[in-house]
């Protein structure tokens, strides 16, 4: 269409009223002139006019045709249809309300879940050109495990994801061309002292190129120079706007020094407000400050290549792609492996878009939830389609009349579809409002471990998606009823008053829709069942230690004041003695890290087979550790206060290690050592297994070193556990008080009861299980409404037949059975189709399940039993109505 033509059409649109009368005038003139011509040739005037009219044709139709050539005609029709739809819907408020509410429910849930998915998975990081940011890590191909014999619990082979070795990072930075830059990032925690209460601050240590890479400049001051990114020059800090506000009241602080871990740091810059929420990088602790990474030279040397300790983010150059960068890294990794076989032989650098990488752990979970609400929207559509079909019985004659009067079928379908779309639009509005409320609820209830969830908002993308979903829904639930109703033969429909004819036809359609509803609902119920059973399985896992009434705390002693392991040991021993003296304290323990609060691992070798090594979870623990956590002694002895420096070096191992390393032999008295050159440690005891990393973790081989033999372990003592007689929460202040009595500058952090930690660890699973159960419940209710509706309609339509049956002597129970059989048929067909679908779909949930298979028969049976039982109960209502039909009334009705 050319521009001039559009202009002509538009001007027509503006002057259409004139144009219509112009055309009318032209046509009238034509007819009159023709009539005059005819009468002048001898035809009587009256007949001449009639003849001229006949010859001309249907003026209305021609006017309409002419109109249509100007297009924009559909606009007219749309306006007419909208007005008509509004009028019809107002006339049946009950239908309108139920339909709108159903759609709103579906749309609302959909909007809520999608807004979370949008915030977590789709939205870019709030920095410039975030699409090119990548996350880099190292995949370490495990060496074949050393255990012999059949062992089902052996750790899976395949690459293990690891943080990056700084020495390797330098190569990735300097020997590739794909990246504008690669920055090392690591969580750093420092004690802030000297201003008010000592506080443990959490921040990031970053390489100097971090800020340029994210295209961020401090709001005040400057970012790090490369020179400051070196040990000895790194006593500079950038603080966030939030910390500036919270701790320094926005005073002029730029250039002055603050004490972090008892070392003076110069504040060189303050970041703009809102940079950068920690969860954008998938970090749980808040970010208060940034310090230079300043990797020490030994870490950057070739000997340091085995230390994988930093996270890496990078920015791709505009010219490179993820694939090309990956290819380049693969080649480089191979080169490094050849040059440094000892440290790099099994190491490959891997790459993913930063946004995807941050949310990789919640991805499946969110997709499953989104799919679930998608199914709900479908069920809601089916339900409304069902309602619309019922309503269309009453409208059969109206539609037949319209078709008989010359409305084209397509026009009728369009009118009916417009009605559906108006319902969808209302549902969309209500649903969006509902979605806004649900979204807030969802974000409040969601566990904090879901990255980026707090940034959930209803933005334009969410709104447009909602509108699109509503539109498609409107078409979906409108098209079938509209199509079905226009297939009526108007003559038949107008002639007979019998509504049953088309009604019976409709019941077939309604049954199909209901079967589909039941099917989708079955899928959701099975999914919810699988998650529920997984959740139950997780809750039932025995951690191997007693978590009740234990308060844990972290006491991060800074290196500047507690330089040696002995100093730290002395601090903790004093603290232990002070706390144990408190009334109500049953026992006290300290160690590197308590279970579920971090830890460290080490490879061990045994003396009698120096070539066998095993990765273990290691822990330096105090004497009271086993008692406090309720870890049982199985063989030999526990650690005692004798086991100090100067005494023989000893170690306690767990059952799993004993099993893997010594099979049936007695491990007591055997010697093991860390790595290939540590001192030999004598095994003095075997204790029961614990799941260090929580309920879903495997039991790992574990070693316990005496905290007092400070020379044999590298990690620092940091965690404290107190078992109390009463509520442990009230001892938090006591711990703080006793710590300050020893060192007034020492903060205490991460104070939590074990039960809180365990509960938080399953929070994500609980959240997703509750949501899916809720969604299944919604779908279930909708499906039941569908079943109920179809049965009720059938019973109503078979009133006469049922009456005759009863008049001829059919018993009430046989009538009941008749209706229930129909219900059973609907449910069975739905369940079977749902089962097939669920069998296929449940594979995608595999990573969310725990302790059960995707084809866990229990979940399937429970879902089916639930559907069948509740379905039957719901069917009883129309069935009982059927048995109470009075034969006389029914026959008179006929």
């Amino acid at each position, binding site marked *: 269409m050319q521009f001039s033509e559009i202009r002509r059409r538009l001007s027509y649109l503006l002057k259409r009223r004139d144009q219509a009368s112009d055309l009318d005038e032209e*046509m009238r003139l034509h007819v009159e002139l023709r009539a005059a011509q005819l009468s002048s040739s001898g035809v009587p005037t009256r007949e001449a006019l009639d003849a001229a009219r006949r010859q001309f044709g249907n003026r209305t139709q021609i006017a309409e045709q002419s109109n249509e050539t100007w297009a924009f005609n559909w606009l007219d029709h749309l306006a007419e249809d909208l007005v008509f739809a509004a009028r019809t819907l107002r006339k049946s408020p009950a239908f309108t309300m139920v339909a709108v509410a159903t759609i709103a429910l579906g749309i609302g849930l959909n909007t809520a879940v999608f807004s979370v998915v949008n915030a977590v998975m789709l939205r870019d990081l709030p920095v410039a050109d975030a699409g090119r940011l990548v996350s880099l890590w190292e995949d370490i191909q495990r060496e074949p495990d050393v255990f012999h014999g059949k062992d089902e619990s052996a750790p899976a082979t395949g690459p293990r994801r690891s943080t990056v070795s700084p020495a390797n990072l330098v190569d990735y930075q300097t020997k590739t061309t794909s990246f504008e830059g690669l920055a090392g990032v690591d969580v750093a925690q420092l004690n802030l002292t000297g201003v008010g209460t000592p506080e443990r601050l959490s921040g990031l240590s970053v390489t100097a190129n971090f800020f340029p890479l994210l295209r961020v400049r401090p709001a005040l001051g400057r970012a790090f120079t490369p020179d400051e990114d070196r040990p000895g020059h790194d006593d500079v800090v950038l603080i966030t706007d939030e910390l500036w506000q919270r701790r320094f009241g926005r005073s002029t602080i730029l250039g002055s020094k603050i004490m972090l871990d008892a070392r003076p740091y110069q504040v060189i810059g303050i970041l703009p407000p809102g940079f950068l929420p920690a969860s954008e990088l998938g970090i749980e602790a808040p970010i208060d400050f940034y310090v230079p990474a300043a990797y020490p030279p030994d870490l950057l040397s070739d000997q340091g290549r085995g230390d994988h300790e930093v996270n890496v983010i990078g920015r791709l150059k505009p010219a490179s792609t993820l694939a090309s960068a990956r290819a380049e890294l693969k080649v480089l990794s191979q080169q490094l492996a050849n040059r440094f076989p000892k440290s790099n032989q099994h190491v490959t650098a891997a790459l993913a878009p930063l946004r995807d990488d941050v949310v990789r752990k919640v991805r499946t979970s969110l997709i499953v939830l989104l799919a679930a609400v998608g199914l709900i929207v479908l069920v809601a559509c089916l339900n409304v389609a069902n309602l619309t079909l019922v309503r269309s019985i009453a409208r059969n004659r109206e539609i037949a009349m319209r078709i008989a009067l010359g409305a084209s079928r397509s026009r009728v379908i369009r009118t009916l579809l417009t009605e559906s779309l108006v319902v969808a639009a209302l549902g969309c509005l209500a649903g969006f409002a509902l979605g806004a409320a649900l979204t807030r609820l969802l974000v409040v209830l969601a566990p904090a471990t879901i990255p980026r969830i707090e940034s959930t908002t209803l933005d334009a993308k969410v709104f447009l998606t909602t509108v699109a979903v509503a539109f498609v829904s409107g078409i979906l639930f409108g098209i079938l009823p509209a199509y079905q109703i226009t297939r009526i033969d108007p003559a038949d429909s107008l002639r007979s008053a019998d509504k049953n004819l088309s009604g019976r036809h409709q019941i077939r359609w309604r049954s199909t829709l209901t079967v589909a509803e039941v099917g989708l609902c079955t899928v959701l119920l099975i999914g919810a069942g699988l998650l529920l059973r997984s959740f139950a399985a997780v809750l039932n896992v025995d951690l191997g230690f007693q978590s009740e009434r234990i308060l844990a705390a972290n006491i991060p002693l800074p290196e500047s004041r507690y330089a040696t392991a002995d100093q730290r040991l002395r601090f903790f021993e004093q603290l232990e003695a002070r706390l144990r003296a408190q009334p109500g304290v049953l026992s006290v323990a300290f160690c590197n890290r308590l279970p579920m609060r971090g830890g460290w691992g080490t490879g061990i070798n045994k003396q009698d087979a120096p070539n066998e090594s095993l990765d273990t979870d290691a822990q330096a623990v105090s004497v009271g550790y086993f008692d406090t956590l309720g870890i049982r002694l199985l063989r030999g002895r526990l650690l005692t206060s004798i086991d100090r420096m100067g005494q023989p070096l000893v170690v306690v191992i767990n059952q799993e290690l004993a099993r893997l390393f010594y099979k049936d032999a007695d491990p007591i008295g055997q010697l093991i050592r860390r790595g290939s050159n540590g001192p030999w440690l004598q095994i003095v005891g075997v204790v029961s297994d614990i799941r260090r990393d929580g309920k879903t973790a495997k039991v790992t081989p574990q070693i316990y070193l005496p905290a007092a033999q400070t020379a044999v372990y590298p990690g620092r003592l940091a965690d404290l556990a107190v078992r109390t007689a009463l509520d442990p929460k009230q001892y938090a202040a006591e711990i703080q008080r006793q710590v300050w009595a020893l060192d007034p500058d020492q903060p205490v952090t991460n104070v939590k009861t074990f039960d809180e930690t365990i509960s938080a660890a399953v929070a994500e699973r609980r959240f997703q299980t509750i949501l899916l159960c809720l969604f299944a419940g919604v779908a279930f209710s909708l499906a039941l409404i569908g079943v109920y509706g179809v049965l009720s309609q059938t019973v109503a339509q078979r009133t006469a037949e049922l009456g005759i049956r009863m008049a001829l002597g059919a018993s009430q129970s046989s009538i009941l059975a008749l209706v229930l059989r129909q219900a059973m048929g609907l449910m069975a067909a739905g369940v079977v189709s749902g089962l097939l679908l669920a069998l296929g779909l449940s594979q995608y949930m595999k990573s969310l399940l725990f302790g059960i298979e995707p084809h866990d028969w229990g979940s399937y049976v429970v879902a089916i039993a639930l559907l069948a039982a509740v379905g039957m109960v719901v069917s009883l209502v129309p069935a009982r109505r059927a048995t109470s039909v009075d034969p006389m009334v029914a026959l008179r009705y006929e």
Partner: protein
Amino acid sequence: MTPLNDPRDQIPPGTLDMLILKTLARSGEMHGFEIANAIQLNSEDILQVEEGSLYPALQRMLVKGWLVGDWGKTAENRRARYYRLTARGRTQLNLEIERYHRVTRAIERIVQPA
């Protein structure tokens, strides 16, 4: 509805536009009735325009910009819209005539006795 004994033929489909354009090209300005009459007369009463279909066709050609219509007065002092060819209409007419000849020649070649 043309009676069976009516000697006049319906104009072949697709040629109405060409006939209208040619008629206007020959006579300059005309209103609808005159166009219908002119086609009938010039074809020596063989072709009959289905009168109603004339007007949607005229509207279509207004949209396309082949014609312009101005209101004027007839000899009987009645208001009427007089249609006139535009430059684009003239180009279109040539196109249509050319196409028409091409088609007729092709058809003739087929129906002529060998």
